[in-house]
């Protein structure tokens, strides 16, 4: 495992930052970490990169305990509130970060040129960081994270300041990194972005992980059905409710969320067996957004 956490907890006096976080992130995957504002996403990332110290629990990164200097050489990090020395040029900033990671001479120059090209700042390297737009500053931050050719990259809201084209470029960079066997821990609010590229996701709410697993599996079970039927009875509604959660009954329209895709024919059977007349039945696979909203509303937690 690239990241293993066991009961990782951070308390700010009486306030919970994150509580008993147990996560396992395997090699070569894009791991999406989701949660509403103030849920504890950045707290966990900050603990893992060494900015915060956990109150309880433990974690191992690339097989070593938190804070191991050797492991830090293999980690790249783009902070959420990215701010860099605005009095340096892009190249100087990268040169400084390269030196921190032990890069020297021609190797450093080559890597700087490579990452600047990769993030679309190939011709802006001689400009002062202070003259960059917010999007360009985020790009140069991403370049800093990629500079040491890390095995594990933490990206905290990496596209928050980018336009749609920039977001697409960053997605392509992440997919490209995964192709090369790198592991990416993506902390993002953008559910559509996470849904597009992540292999696994974890959802955190009020400091606790409420769901974690492969994205496909998390979304596979749940399906939403909307049907128009005549002669709707209370018995029919009760039987339908047992298949999942009833979302809406209005006039001849019933909308419900099923736990299993295999229950779709059962829905039709219940309507017909209860004397109803089925006019239409449409299904829609639940999106990550639906899952996210449901879980955050429920507020339950997966304990270790």
């Amino acid at each position, binding site marked *: 495992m690239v990241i293993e956490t066991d009961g990782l907890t951070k308390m700010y006096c009486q306030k919970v930052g994150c509580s008993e976080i147990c996560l396992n992130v395997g090699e070569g995957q894009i791991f999406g970490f989701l949660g509403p504002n103030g849920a504890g996403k950045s707290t966990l990332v900050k603990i893992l990169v060494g900015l915060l110290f956990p109150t309880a629990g433990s974690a191992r990164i690339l097989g070593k305990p938190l804070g191991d*200097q050797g492991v830090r050489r293999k980690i790249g*990090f783009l*902070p959420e*509130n990215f701010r860099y020395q605005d*009095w340096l040029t892009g190249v100087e900033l990268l040169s*400084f970060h390269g030196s921190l990671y032990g890069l020297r001479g021609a190797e450093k120059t080559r890597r700087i040129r490579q990452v600047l090209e990769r993030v679309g700042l190939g011709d802006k390297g001689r400009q002062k960081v202070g003259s960059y737009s917010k999007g360009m500053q985020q790009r140069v931050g991403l370049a800093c994270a990629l500079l040491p050719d890390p095995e594990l990259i933490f990206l905290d809201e990496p596209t928050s300041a980018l336009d749609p084209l920039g977001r697409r470029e960053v997605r392509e960079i992440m997919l490209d990194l995964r192709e090369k066997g790198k592991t990416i821990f993506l902390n993002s609010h953008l559910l559509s972005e996470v849904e597009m590229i992540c292999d696994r996701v974890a959802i955190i709410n009020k400091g606790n992980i409420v769901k974690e697993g492969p994205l496909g599996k998390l979304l596979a079970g749940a399906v939403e059905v909307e049907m128009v039927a005549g002669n709707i009875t209370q018995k029919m509604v009760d039987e339908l409710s047992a298949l999942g959660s009833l979302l809406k009954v209005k006039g001849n329209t019933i909308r419900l969320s099923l736990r299993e895709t295999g229950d779709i024919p059962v829905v039709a059977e219940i309507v017909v067996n209860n004397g109803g007349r089925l006019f239409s039945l449409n299904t829609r696979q639940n999106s990550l957004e639906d899952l996210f909203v449901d879980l955050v509303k429920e507020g339950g937690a997966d304990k270790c």
Partner: protein
Amino acid sequence: MLTIAALTCKEVVRRRILLVTIVLAAAFLSLYGIGVHYGYQDMGGSQYAGPMSALIAPMFLSLGLYFGSFIIAFLAVMAAVGSVSGEIENGVINAIVPSPVRRVDIILGKFIGYSLMLSVFSSLFYAAVLLIVRYNTGLHLPVKAGAITLFCLQPVVLLAVTMFGSTFLSTLANGIACFMLYAVGVVGGMLEQIGTLVNSQMLVNIGIVSSLLMPADSVYRKIVFNLLSAPGSSMSYMMLGPFGSYSEPSVWMLVYTGLYIVIFLALASLIFSRKDI
């Protein structure tokens, strides 16, 4: 550590902290040079020219070094006041701490960078004051490496405290605290000299306590005594009032000053190493 030190030096230059200080120091030295020139020249025509000339040149020298120490102290505090807190407040440190550099190395690197810059500036300032006095008054003082080193040591003492404060105080609170502490040292040093002059043990004790709280002023007294008590010089170091030094601070005071720097640096490193960012 050296990467951080190099970046710190570059920051002082790029953010024009050094440039502003050099411009202000040049303004001060120009005014000082004009003052020394006309003060000494005009005094030549007075009836007290003979006895006064032996006193006035060392007085000009001590004034130059005293107010020069002020300027350099301001530079030390202003440069380092947000060295840690400022970078935490604006988020710049978030990209540095996760890199494979120990937090203690970040503190030491910054300290080395600022110390280097302050030492170069202090040495040049010291040389400029001595040259102005020598050119205008003819007061010939031997070049003493010890005195130059001590002159460079003064801002480093303040730097260590400022960096310590920067690890747990906000930038503004740290700036106020450091200037107040420096003022305590300066006022205490003056009271000690007055106490010696009027034979008041209480004032002397206040001076000793203030020197323990902030030993930068003791270092200045050591420099003045060291410079003006050289063989062949007059005993005018005793006649410089609060700018002079009636008794030489002991070697143990220098040892204490060294320990003071080391302890505050160690505390800064310790606090920063355990700090949540």
